[in-house]
C-alpha cells in the first residue's frame, strides 16, 4: 500500500523510512510497523525528512567554501614570482635551471574519469538499496544480480574514490619532488590548499561510504535506509561536481 497523507499526496518513502528519527514526534503509540520497529508518521511541513533539508543547507554552505578557495586561486593565477608554474616553463634566474610546466593533464584526466565513474557507481548503489525488497525477475542474469547488489556498488564507489585519492597522492608527491611545495610560491599555496581541501572532502566521503558498507555487511541495507544512502550520495555527487569546476579552471584553462 502506498502511504499518502490525508490530502492524497503520496508520502515519499524516505519520510516513512526507519532512519527518520522522530523530530516533531506526536504519536508515541503509532501502529508498529514492519521489521519490529516502531514507525512514526511524523508530520513535517514539506513532507521531507529534516536531514534531507539540512544536507542541502550544508551543500549550499560548501558551495561558498569552495567558491572562496577557487576565487583565490583565480585571483592569484599568474602572480607567482618564482616557479614552477602550472602551464608554462620557468627558468630559475639564479641557477639557470629550467622547470617544466608542472601540471600533468593526462594523469589528472584519468583521475577525473575515475572520480566521475564513482558517481555512476553511487547512483547504482542507491538504486540497489532502494530496490532491495523487489524480487529479481525470473531468469535474472548476472547483470541483474550485479545491479541489485548494493555491496558491489558501494565497494565500487569507495574504491574509485580511493583511486582518485591515490592519484592525488601521486600528484602531490611528484610535485614536491619537482620542487613545488605549499610554501614555494602563490601557485603552490593556492593549488595545494584548494585541491587538498577537495581531497579531504573525498576522504570524508570514502569514510562515510565505508560506514554504510559496514552496515550493509552487518545487517543489510534496505529501502528503509534509502534516505541515509541518498544523503551520502548527495554529498558525494557534490564533491564530484566541485572537482569538475576545479579540473576545468585549474587544469584545462591555460595561463
Amino acid at each position, binding site marked *: 500500500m502506498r502511504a499518502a497523507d490525508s490530502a492524497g499526496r503520496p508520502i515519499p518513502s524516505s519520510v516513512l523510512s526507519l532512519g527518520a528519527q522522530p523530530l*516533531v514526534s*506526536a504519536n508515541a503509540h503509532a501502529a508498529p510497523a514492519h521489521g519490529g520497529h516502531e514507525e512514526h*508518521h511524523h508530520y513535517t*511541513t*514539506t513532507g521531507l525528512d529534516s536531514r534531507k533539508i*539540512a544536507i542541502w543547507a550544508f551543500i549550499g554552505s560548501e558551495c561558498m*567554501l569552495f567558491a572562496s578557495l577557487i576565487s583565490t586561486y583565480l585571483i592569484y593565477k599568474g602572480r607567482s614570482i618564482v616557479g614552477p608554474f602550472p602551464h608554462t616553463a620557468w627558468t630559475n634566474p639564479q641557477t639557470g635551471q629550467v622547470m617544466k610546466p608542472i601540471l600533468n593533464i593526462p594523469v589528472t584526466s584519468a583521475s577525473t574519469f575515475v572520480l566521475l565513474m564513482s558517481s555512476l557507481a553511487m547512483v547504482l548503489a542507491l538504486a540497489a538499496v532502494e530496490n532491495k525488497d523487489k524480487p529479481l525477475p525470473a531468469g535474472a542474469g548476472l547483470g541483474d544480480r550485479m545491479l541489485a547488489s548494493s555491496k558491489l556498488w558501494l565497494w565500487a564507489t569507495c574504491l574509485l574514490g580511493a583511486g582518485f585519492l591515490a592519484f592525488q597522492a601521486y600528484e602531490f608527491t611528484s610535485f614536491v619532488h619537482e620542487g613545488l611545495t605549499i610554501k614555494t610560491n*602563490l601557485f603552490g599555496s593556492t593549488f595545494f590548499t584548494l585541491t587538498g581541501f577537495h581531497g579531504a572532502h573525498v576522504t570524508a566521503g570514502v569514510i562515510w561510504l565505508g560506514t554504510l558498507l559496514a552496515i550493509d555487511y552487518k545487517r543489510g541495507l534496505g529501502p528503509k535506509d534509502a534516505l541515509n544512502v541518498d544523503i551520502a550520495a548527495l554529498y558525494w555527487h557534490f564533491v564530484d561536481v566541485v572537482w569538475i569546476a576545479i579540473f576545468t579552471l585549474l587544469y584545462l584553462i591555460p595561463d
Partner: protein
Amino acid sequence: MATVAASPTYASHATGEKEGIMAWLTTTDHKKIGTLYLHTSLFFFIFGGLEAVLMRWQLMKPNMTVVTADQFNQLFTMHGTTMVFLAIMPLSAAFFNYLIPLQLGARDVAFPRLNAFSYWVYLFGGLFITIPIFGWMAPNGGWFAYAPLSGRTYSPGINMDFWVLGIQILGVSSLAAAFNFATTVINLRAPGMNLMRMPMFTWMSFVTQFLIILAFPVITIALVFLQFDRFFGTNFYQVSAGADPLLWQHLFWVFGHPEVYILILPAFGLVSEVLPTNSKKPLFGYPVMAYSGILIGFLGFGVWAHHMFAVGMGPIGDTVFSLTTMLIAIPTGVKIFNWIFTMWGGSIRFTAAMKFAIGLIALFTIGGISGISHSSPPSDLQQTDTYYIVAHFHYVLFGGAIMGIFSGIYHYFPKMYGRYMNETLGTWHFWLNFIAMNLTFFPMHFSGMLGMPRRIYTYDANQGWDTFNMISTAGAFLLMPATLIFIYNFFSSKKGGEPAPPNAWDAATLEWSIPSPPPEYNFAKIPVVHSRYPLWDLTHPERTKDVPHTDAGMVHTGEHDVVDMHIETETFTAKQLGIPMPSATIKPFWTALGMVIMFTGLLMMPHNKTAGYAGIGVGAAMLVGFLYAWLTTPLEEHH
C-alpha cells in the same frame, strides 16, 4: 491513548532523568539550551563591556597610563571579538533556541543533539579565545585582523593564533546552529503556518540563518589561509611572494558585512514582536517587513567593499559599492517607518520592553544616518578609521542590536521563568542605559570628525578631543550601574518577580498559548493556524479582523494530537502525555570538547611539538569516538 486528562500521578523524575548539573550538561531541550546561551552570552557581554570600560578609562584624559599600548591593542581586539562573536550573536542564538520552536508550534528543533553541540562548541570556543587576556596574551590585531599585519611577520606571538583558531571554532558552532534552525523553520511549522504567517522574529531569524550559512564559509577559508601562513609558511598574504594585500580585506568583508546583518536582524525581529503586542495592533505592513528583511539579506552580500573605500579600488568599484550601500538603506528605512506606523494609533503600553524597542528605533536611525554619510566615498575618506566610525557602529550595534535584545529579554522573561522582571528597575535600566549610551558614543562623532583615529592607545592634549573623550568616558562609567541594575533585576526576578500568567503581555503568537515556563514538550496538542495572529483570533478577534484568514496549508496530518488553535493552561510531563522526547545525552558535550582540545593541540604546535601532537591526537580521538557513539544512538528511547 494518552490524553491531556491522563492521570497526573506519574512521578516526574521516575525514569532516570538527570538532575542538577548533569541535567544541564546532557540537555537536548531547546529551551534549556536557549537558557544556557542566554546566561553565557550575558557573561561575555559583561566581560566585553569591562574591556571597553578599561579602554575608556585609558582614554579619559591625554597621555594616561592605565594600560600599555600592547594591552590596549588586546583590549580593543577582544572587545570587538567578544561583542560580535561571544555576546550579540549568541544572545540572538538564545532567542533562536528559545523562541523559534515555540513560535512555529514545534516540540523541538530539527536536530536537538546538534543544537547541544553548537552550544558547547560556543562555550569552549569562547573560553579558548577569552582566557588568554588574563595573562595579557590575547589577540591584538583588531577584530578584523587585517592580513598581512596579522601574519607571523608582523604578529609573531601566540596572540593572533588564539584569534585565528578561536574564530574557526566559533564558526563551527554558528554553522551547525544555522543548518539546524534553517531546517527547523522550513520543516517543523505547525499545520497552517505558511511562511507568510510566521511571527516576524522567526522570519528575521530565518533570513539570518541563510546569512550565516553563506557568509561563514568565506571567513573559514580566509582563516584557513591565515592559519596556513602562520603555521605552515604559505604565501596567501605574503606580499613579497606576490600576494595581494587586499585579499584578506575582501574575504573578510564578504563575510563581515553580512555578519553585521546577522547581528541586527534578530534584534529587528524581537522589536517586531514587542511593538505590535504593546501597541495592541497587528504589525504594520507585515509582508513588506518580511520582504525587506530578505532584501537586506541579499543586498548585504553586495556592499562589502564600502569598508574599503580608502584602499584605492578606483572609481568604478567605489561607485558600485557606494550605490549598493545607499540602496540597502531603503529596506532598512522601510522597517523603521513600519514600526512607527505600527505604534501609530495604537493604545501603547510603555513596558520596559517597549521602551527599549522604541530606543532601538531612535538610536538605530541615528546610526543608519551616519552610515549613509559614509556610503559616499569622498565623505568616507574623511571618516574612515576615525572615531566617527566607532560612533556609527556603536549606534547600530549597541543602539540597535543590544537595545533590541534587552527589549526581547524583558518581553520574554515571563515566558522563560513565569515571572515578570521588575518594571521600575527596568525603567531605570532603560533611561540610564539610554543616557549613558548617548553620552558615550555621541561625542565620538565630533572627536572623529576632528581627526581622532580609532585604536590609538593615547593622545596628546589640545587637539580638540579632550572634552569629548572625557564625556565619552563618563558615559562608559555610567553604563556600568545601568547594566548592574539589569543584572540584579534579571536574577532577583527569577525568584521573586511578580508571577506572570501564560500570556504575560496579551500577545498574539503561539508561544503565548502555552504555560510559562513552557513544559518540556511545548505543545500538548499541536495547534492548527489560520492567520498571523492565532492567539488574538481567540482573545481579541477585533484586532485581527483585517488580517487574512484562510485554511491555506491546513493539511490534516493524520496525527491525533493536532487540534484547532487553543490555549493550554496545564503543565504535564511528556511521559504523562505519551509524547516521546529526545533523550538527554552527554555525547555532544564531549564531542565539542574533543574538537576544542584538537584546536588547542594545533595552537601548541609552534611551541611544543609533543604537546601539540598529543592535543591533536587526544582531541581527534575524542571527537571521532563520541561522534560515533552519538550517531549510532537513536535520538529517542524506545517506549
